[in-house]
């Protein structure tokens, strides 16, 4: 029997699929395509094969800037990983303790900075760390650590680390909440059984809880990775598009922005911008694939 044409299916799906395709999926593919083209000075676009990539990775000026941004971005991510996961795990472990009063209030308040705009957070920390205002300097003096104060955001050696820590401070709420949720989902019987067997709370935590929440740690890591490799706002707000001092805070997002729109004497280029975006896409894709193939497959064994 010939069935009626499923008009209702079109009705339900078309708006979402069309908007998503036109303004998200197609632009991504088109950007990948544009990375193989080049614009002449008169604005004519022609196929250029891999020459943009050869320029980006082979030309000394370009490749130095590219690898600098890539390496800075990697450091940015590694600092997130090393600082945010342990703190997030620690906070989640404390919050999930049985009989803790006020857990709801704590998690609500600790999550707050995560919701604020990165731009605002960047400016707020810039003020607080400013030697002009002296809030953090006086605070360190009060702790007897005054001699360690420095204009951290202004120094080449410390600006990137400081920005990474500001970002960790802001987004700690996400790992905390996801880990907290997964700690709560561990069945009570399992923990009771371990207790009856005489395991100490410390041992229960490391031997039972942590292995069970490994998939969540994996998820947090990949979310952080994707977020870190396309972020832009924090560096742009605090250090501007030039990501100073001397490009020491330049990450892929700011490098992409400068390539696309130009800066100082260098003209912006849509096709070189697309080439940088394509490299960012490849980095993110590699990370996501690694997550799905390696981490996810290994970790599901632990899942209940």
């Amino acid at each position: 029997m010939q069935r009626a044409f499923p008009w209702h299916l079109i009705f339900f799906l078309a708006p979402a699929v069309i908007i998503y395709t036109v303004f998200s999926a197609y632009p991504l593919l088109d950007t990948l395509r544009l990375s193989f083209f080049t614009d002449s000075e008169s604005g004519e676009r022609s196929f250029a094969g891999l020459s943009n990539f050869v320029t980006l990775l082979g030309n000394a000026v370009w490749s130095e800037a590219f690898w600098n941004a890539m390496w800075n971005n990697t450091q940015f991510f590694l600092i997130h990983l090393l600082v945010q996961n342990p703190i997030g795990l620690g906070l989640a472990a404390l919050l999930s303790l049985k009989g803790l009063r006020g857990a709801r209030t704590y998690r609500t308040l600790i999550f707050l900075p995560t919701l604020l705009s990165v731009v605002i957070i960047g400016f707020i920390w810039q003020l607080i760390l400013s030697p002009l205002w002296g809030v953090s300097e006086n605070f360190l003096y009060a702790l007897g650590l005054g001699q360690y104060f420095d204009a951290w955001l202004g120094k080449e050696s410390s600006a990137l680390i400081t920005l990474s820590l500001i970002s960790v401070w802001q987004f700690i709420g996400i790992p905390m909440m996801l880990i907290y949720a997964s700690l709560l989902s561990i069945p009570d019987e399992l923990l009771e059984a371990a207790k009856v067997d005489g395991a100490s709370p410390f041992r229960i935590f490391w031997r039972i809880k942590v292995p069970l929440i490994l998939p969540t740690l994996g998820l947090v890591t990949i979310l952080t990775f994707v977020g870190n490799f396309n972020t832009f706002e924090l560096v742009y707000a605090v250090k501007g598009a030039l990501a100073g001092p001397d490009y020491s805070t330049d990450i892929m997002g700011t490098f992409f922005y400068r390539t696309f729109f130009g800066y100082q004497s260098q003209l912006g280029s849509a096709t070189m911008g697309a080439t940088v975006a394509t490299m960012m896409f490849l980095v993110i894709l590699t990370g996501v694939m690694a997550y799905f193939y390696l981490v996810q497959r290994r970790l599901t064994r632990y899942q209940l």
Partner: protein
Amino acid sequence: MTPSFQYQQKARMGLVHLALLGYTLIALFPIVLVIINSFKSRSAIFNDPLSLPDTGSFTLVGYAKVLQESDILLYFGNSLLVTVIPLFLVLLFGAMAAWALSEYRFRGNRLLALFLAMGIMVPIRLGTVSILETMVSLNLVNTHLALILVYTAMGLPLAIFILTEFIGQVPNELKEAARCDGITEIRLFFQIILPLVRPAVATVAVFTMVPMWNDLWFPLILAPGDATKTIQLGVQQFIGQYATDWNSVLAALSLAVLPILVLYVFFSQQLISGLTSGAVK
């Protein structure tokens, strides 16, 4: 339980509270510091940053300057416009698509779901070069519509993904009963399914709204004109211009934080129960 054990237990809980309280202070201190100093005179900001404003130091001069020197109210309006409209579209179109994907079996269903889910992991920003060219050719640069379309596309993948799970949990008997009454598929969705998944829609709303409200990238690239500037971009440029005027800077920052703070007071429980119920696992 022996008294000493109880004592130990209490001491341990005390330490836990101390740690959590300490971290809560770290999380809130910067925000509180900026807000209290935004109400103080310049000398009080510098001489005594940690004290609350008192009769001697209280002033609204920063706020007055921000309201006078920048179109901050217009920027608020712009932000509201390019957040609320995409939010509505994401929730409506997202729920419709989620219903179709979870309810009907058709060829390419899984493939379509995968195609839409890709947008969760691949950031929409990577397509910026092409998005800008599209907007230029459609003559949409410096319009609200450009941001509305991009934000709708940005919010849909996660919304569809989460809502598909929820809509899949609606019991079959309910749908069959409604169909026996001869209801059309479209009325079934709008009159029965949509009201049922309202709590999930509310959770998705919060997740969708925050990145749109806080975004700087697309306003900077697609709509930097004065008439369409959002609050993030407006505040960023205002601070760049008045960097040495601490009263104005602090007031501008406080104003930018305020709407989210107010919303959070009302919706924090919704948001957090959404996060912890594993809705985004």
